[in-house]
């Protein structure tokens, strides 16, 4: 039997880039379901438009770079799904379209496509939209008000509790609406419980490490406990930070993006803690009510440093372990001589 030679290992683990992306898509679909529940069909169409734009842009840019487009590559779908979720449901269609084009063409493909981008495309797209359309980005419709499916929205737009926190006030909402996420805010980020469930699913599937969002959100919570914003105090301040700002959404979906986080576990943990600190600093001193995309982009720039430092540390530890173990094990049975077995001993 003549066969072509293959490389070892001859069995492979069940995970592929495709399953990683599919996990993300499944969880984001759950978030879209909640957005549909709050804001009706417009939320879904925003998502569909954004995904279509991102996929088309990804395809076109891959062709422009002279590569063969991979039809199974779902990373553009994830980016496309993420972008509108961080915007109000009333956003004009052109905003996620431009954000998606910026994310894919400039932040992702210009750096060499999937795996080579330094900055998270979705966060960069949203940051771009915030800078360009600051007012529109932070005017939210109240949940359950009917929104026009096409064209501009005529419903009354308000500022959300995140803005109240930003200007130093204390938002008053009862626990029920808080847990249901019926809050004026970006269309995908208000239902913290659903997002937390998504995080659990991703962690259980080992798509993200559970410590990454936990450490990042823990740091944010600790910072808000020690240095509360405005007039709220203690635990109220923690609840305000976690439920009224989109920090949980960012912690679960964006700060865990594998391409733009360090590789080593130690570095991942440190990165999460520093991200939390930076998020807390920027939400307090930043110029917008939602500073997380900027915090993420800033942290992304330091990922190579985290990687280098962790590699140096791990190399030292590793060599120490080798040295210790080397004294205790060997395959050394003397030289390759061929003399006869030892004659009668004693």
């Amino acid at each position: 039997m003549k066969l072509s030679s293959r490389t070892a290992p001859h069995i492979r683990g069940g995970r592929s880039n495709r399953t990683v992306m599919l996990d993300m898509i499944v969880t984001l679909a759950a978030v879209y379901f909640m957005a549909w529940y709050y804001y009706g069909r417009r939320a879904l169409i925003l998502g569909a438009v954004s995904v279509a734009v991102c996929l088309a842009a990804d395809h076109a840019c891959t062709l422009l770079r002279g590569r063969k487009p991979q039809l199974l590559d779902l990373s553009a779908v994830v980016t496309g799904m993420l972008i509108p979720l961080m915007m109000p449901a009333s956003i004009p269609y052109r905003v996620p379209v431009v954000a998606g084009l910026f994310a894919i063409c400039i932040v992702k493909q210009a750096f060499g496509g999937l795996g080579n981008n330094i900055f998270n495309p979705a966060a960069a797209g949203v940051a771009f939209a915030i800078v360009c359309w600051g007012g529109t980005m932070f005017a939210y419709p109240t949940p359950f008000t009917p929104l026009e499916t096409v064209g501009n929205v005529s419903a009354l737009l308000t500022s959300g509790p995140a803005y109240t926190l930003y200007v130093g006030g204390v938002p008053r909402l009862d626990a029920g609406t808080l847990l249901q996420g019926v809050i004026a805010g970006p269309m995908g980020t208000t239902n913290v419980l659903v997002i937390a469930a998504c995080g659990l699913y991703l962690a259980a599937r080992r798509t993200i490490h559970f410590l990454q969002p936990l450490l990042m959100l823990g740091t944010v919570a600790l910072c808000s406990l020690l240095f509360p914003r405005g007039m709220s105090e203690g635990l109220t301040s923690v609840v305000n930070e976690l439920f009224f700002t989109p920090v949980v959404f960012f912690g679960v979906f964006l700060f865990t993006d594998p391409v733009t986080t360090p590789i080593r576990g130690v570095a991942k943990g440190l990165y999460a803690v520093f991200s939390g600190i930076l998020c807390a600093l920027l939400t307090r001193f930043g110029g917008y009510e939602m500073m997380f995309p900027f915090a993420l982009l800033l942290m992304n720039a330091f990922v190579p440093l985290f990687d280098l430092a962790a590699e140096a540390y791990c190399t030292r530890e590793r060599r120490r372990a080798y040295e210790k173990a080397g004294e205790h094990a060997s395959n050394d049975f003397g030289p390759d001589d061929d003399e006869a077995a030892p004659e009668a001993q004693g």
Partner: protein
Amino acid sequence: MKRLKLPPMGVFHRGIPMEQHKEPALSQPLDLLTNTPEPQRMEGQPVYPDLEHVEPFEIIRAAKAAGIIDERDGLPLFKKLKACVAKGVFIRVDAVDDEPYLSSQLGPLLRFREECVSGLRLACKAITAADSGIIEVYRNMADLEIKIPRSIEGIRVRRIGGFYPTEIRSGYSLVEEEGKRYLYLGSCALIHLHRAVFQGLAQTTAFLTVGGNCVAHPCNLEVSLGLPVTDVLDRCGLTETPTRVVVGGSMTGQSVSDTDKALVTVTTRGVLAFRDKEQTDRSPCIRCGRCVQVCPMGLNPMMLYRSIQQGLERETEALDYKHCIECMCCSFECPARLEIAEAIKEYRRGRRSAT
């Protein structure tokens, strides 16, 4: 012999839990596949009646005359025994088989219990070991139908934990633990030692597992050395044409291009036939860090792969590529299906032949 340094179990990670696929082969009876009708006695080699009537040096001499090679590390058995004579070394029998599909040490151990234990007693006597030894098997075999006994012929069977690269990690045949020194011997080599001493037979066969997803009747076989792989596969039958035939384990084995020219050797542990889809789409590394998580040597396979691809020699050196044990865990886990381990292996080969 190359001298690798190995961190103790569990310093870097606990290994990869894998589906074992041992079951069809392990519960089938162990058959013989030879090209000679009767095993030939060695000329001039005495046959000893029992353990009392054989001197330690005679055991080592018989091992040498029979040409027994330990399937565990490919070293001559007599050499391993000779180096440990009267040094207070304990013996451990390796029947771990941690690569999926393989049961070529455990199968013969269960089938030829008396021979294996008698071989162990001979080996203990040969090196005047301090106790009667211990047998090690793999703990993580949940899908087994047959029970592995707690003791075989009065020898304790110890289950060792940990996940996949357990055996390669303990790939050292002379290990020091808590001040005691242990010599690892393969279970098949002990069966051959028994046959050499008490029946005067040379090692002319190897124990191997035939398996894979397109083998009709997976089983363990005792196969004559030098038989082509085609014959072994014909013996068990194929349900469909395989796309790859592997000599060795499913993780570390060598894929063969011509089954008529690939022959069974003393260290052949398995012949596996797989039918799988050829991967056509190439996805890039998404820096997920799984390869780093699973590397039992604490290396950074992702960075190594990149530096090898870019030809950065100094960086590759600094990343300790030499310590790779070629367990193939990184390639197994990689969601982009990159040939990380293969690249590192090739690079090591290249560097070794260059110096």
